[in-house]
C-alpha cells in the first residue's frame, strides 16, 4: 500500500497488529474447536486430555426422536419465516429505494426495531400480544415472531444492492416499452437476485438459532435451540457436543454458499 520503506517502529506495529489478530481469531475459535474435539470423546466428562475416540454420539442423534422432531420444526419455521420475509422485505426495499415519501425514515426505523430492541422485550411484548387476543402459543406464533425480525434482514440486504444497481437499466427498459412488471422481472430481479438469496440465508440462520424470543412464543412443539436449551438446563449429555458440531458444520457450508452467491454477482 505505502511504497516507502517501513520504519522499524512501523514494522513493529504491523507485527503487533498481526499477532493481536491471530490471538483474537484463536479466542473466536477455541470454544468451537473444543466442542468438535469432545464430540468424538468416549468419556462422558469433558475433561482434558481426550480419553478415546468414538462416533457413537453422532449415532445417538439419529435415534433421538425428540431431537429429530425439533430439527424438523426448526427447518419448517425457518423456511416459512424466510419466505414471508423475502416477499415483504424485497417489496419494502423496492418501495424505499424508488420513492421519497414522508415517513420513509420512520418506516426504516420501525423495521429495524425487532433486531435493535433487546430480545427479552420483543419476546414478552409478543407473548402479551398473543395472550391478550387469546391466541394459543404454537409453532405458528414462533413463526410470526421469527418472520418479524427476518424482514429487516432481507430488506437491508436488498436495499444495499439496489443502491448500486444503475438506474439507467430500468429506465432503458421503460424507454424500450417494457411495462413495470416486465421491467421488474427481466431487469430489476436478476440484478438483486443474489442479494435476496444472501439475505434469505442470513435470515434463515438467525431463525434457526433464535432462542431468546422463541422461548416466550413456544407452545408444545420445540424448535431445535429450544430442545437443546431444555437439555442444557437439566445437565450435560455428550450428545450435545455432536449436535453442536453438526450445527457448526452446517453454518460453515451456509457461509461458503452465501459468499459464493455474492461473488457470482460481483
Amino acid at each position, binding site marked *: 500500500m*505505502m*511504497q*516507502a520503506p*517501513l*520504519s522499524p*517502529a512501523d514494522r513493529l506495529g*504491523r507485527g503487533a*497488529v*498481526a499477532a493481536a*489478530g491471530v490471538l*483474537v481469531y484463536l*479466542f*473466536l475459535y*477455541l*470454544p*468451537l474447536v*473444543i*466442542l468438535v474435539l469432545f464430540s468424538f470423546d468416549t468419556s462422558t466428562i*469433558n475433561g*482434558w*486430555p481426550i480419553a478415546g475416540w468414538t462416533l457413537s454420539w453422532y449415532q445417538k442423534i439419529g435415534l433421538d426422536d425428540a431431537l429429530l422432531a425439533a430439527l424438523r420444526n426448526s427447518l419448517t419455521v425457518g423456511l416459512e419465516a424466510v419466505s414471508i420475509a423475502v416477499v415483504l422485505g424485497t*417489496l419494502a426495499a423496492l418501495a424505499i429505494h424508488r*420513492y*421519497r*415519501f414522508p*415517513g420513509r425514515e420512520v418506516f426504516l426505523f*420501525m423495521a429495524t*426495531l*425487532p433486531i*435493535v*430492541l*433487546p*430480545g*427479552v*422485550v420483543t419476546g*414478552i*411484548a*409478543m407473548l*402479551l*400480544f398473543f395472550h391478550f387476543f387469546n391466541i394459543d402459543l404454537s409453532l405458528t406464533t414462533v413463526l*410470526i415472531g421469527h418472520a*418479524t425480525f427476518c424482514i429487516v434482514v432481507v*430488506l437491508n440486504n436488498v436495499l444495499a444492492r439496489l443502491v448500486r444497481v444503475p438506474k439507467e437499466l*430500468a429506465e432503458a*427498459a421503460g*424507454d424500450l416499452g*417494457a411495462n413495470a412488471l416486465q*421491467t*421488474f422481472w427481466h431487469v430489476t430481479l436478476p440484478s438483486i437476485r443474489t442479494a435476496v438469496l444472501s439475505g434469505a440465508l442470513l435470515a434463515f440462520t438467525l431463525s434457526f*438459532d433464535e432462542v*431468546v424470543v422463541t422461548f416466550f412464543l413456544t407452545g408444545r412443539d420445540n424448535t431445535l*435451540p429450544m430442545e*437443546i436449551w431444555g437439555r*442444557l*438446563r437439566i445437565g450435560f449429555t455428550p450428545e*450435545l457436543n455432536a449436535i*453442536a458440531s453438526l450445527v457448526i458444520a452446517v*453454518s460453515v457450508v451456509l*457461509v461458503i454458499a452465501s*459468499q459464493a452467491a455474492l461473488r457470482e454477482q460481483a
Partner: protein
Amino acid sequence: MDVAQPTRLATPSSRRELPAILRALPLLSPSLLWLAVFYLVPLGILLLHSVWSTDTVNMVIVRQFTLSSYQSIATDPLFRDVALRTITMAVGVTLTDIVLAFPIAYLIAFRLGRLKTLAFMLVLVPLWSSYLIRAYAWKTILGLDGVLNSFLVAVHILSRPSPAFLYSNLAMFITFTHVWLPFMILPVYTALEKIPRSLLEAAGDLGAPGWRTFLHVVLPLSVPGIVAGAIATFSLTMGDYITPQLLGGPDSQLVGNVIASQFGVTFNWPLGAAFSAVVLVIVAVFLVLANRVGAAGTAR
C-alpha cells in the same frame, strides 16, 4: 419503471398523477401492516400491562391503571442493583469487543490480500453457528473438569481444579464478549473498507508514522462502524437471560433474568412489563448517546 414518463430527468416525486406515498403503498403495505400488527401493537400492549397490576391472591391481572409496578422498581434496591450490574456488563462487553474487533477488522481491510475472503468468512462462521452452543462451549472450558482447569493443573499452576471460573460474573463477561464479537467486527470492517486508500498513502507520503495515520485518519473514520457495533453488543447484552442462567453465579442476575422470571414462577406480568419499559428507556438513551458520538466523530 417510468413507463408513462419517457424523459430521463423526471424523478418519481415530480410525477403529477399520484404522490410518492400512494405509489409506494402497494409495495410497502404488506410489511407495514405486518410490522404494525405484530410489532407495534405488541409493544403497545406491553406498555399497557406495565400500568396494570397482578392480584396475587387469585393470580389474575387487574386491568386498572396504576403505577405500582414502576414504584416497586424505583424503590426496591434489588432492581437497582440488577439494572446497574446489567448496564456495567453491557458497557464492559461493548468496550472490550471494540478493542478485540479492531485488529481483525484492520487486517481484513488493509493487510490481507488473497486471504481476505477466507479471513472474512472465518468471522461469519462463529456468527452463524448457534449462540446457545457457543455459550455452552464456555461452560465446558471453564468448568471444574474443563479444559482450563485441566491445563492449569497439568502445568502445576493449580494443585487442584478451581471452581472459581464457572458460575461467576467473569464467566458471563467472557461468554458475552465472545458471542457478540462478530457483531462488532463486521460493522468496523465495513467502515474501514470505505476509507479511501489514497488517504492513507497521503498520510504516509507526508511522513506520518503508522500509529499517527491510525490515530488521526483510520480511527476517526471508523467511528460509524464502532457505533453500529456498540448498539448491537449493548442491546444484545441488555436483552439476554440465557448466558446468566448457563454460566452466571448467585449474584449474576441480569435484567433479562428478572423480566423472564416474572413470566415463569413469579407470575407478575405487569412487573415484568414495567421492567421491560425501563430497559427500553435505557436502550433508547444508549442509542441517542451512540448516535451523538457517531455524529461528532464523522463531523471532524
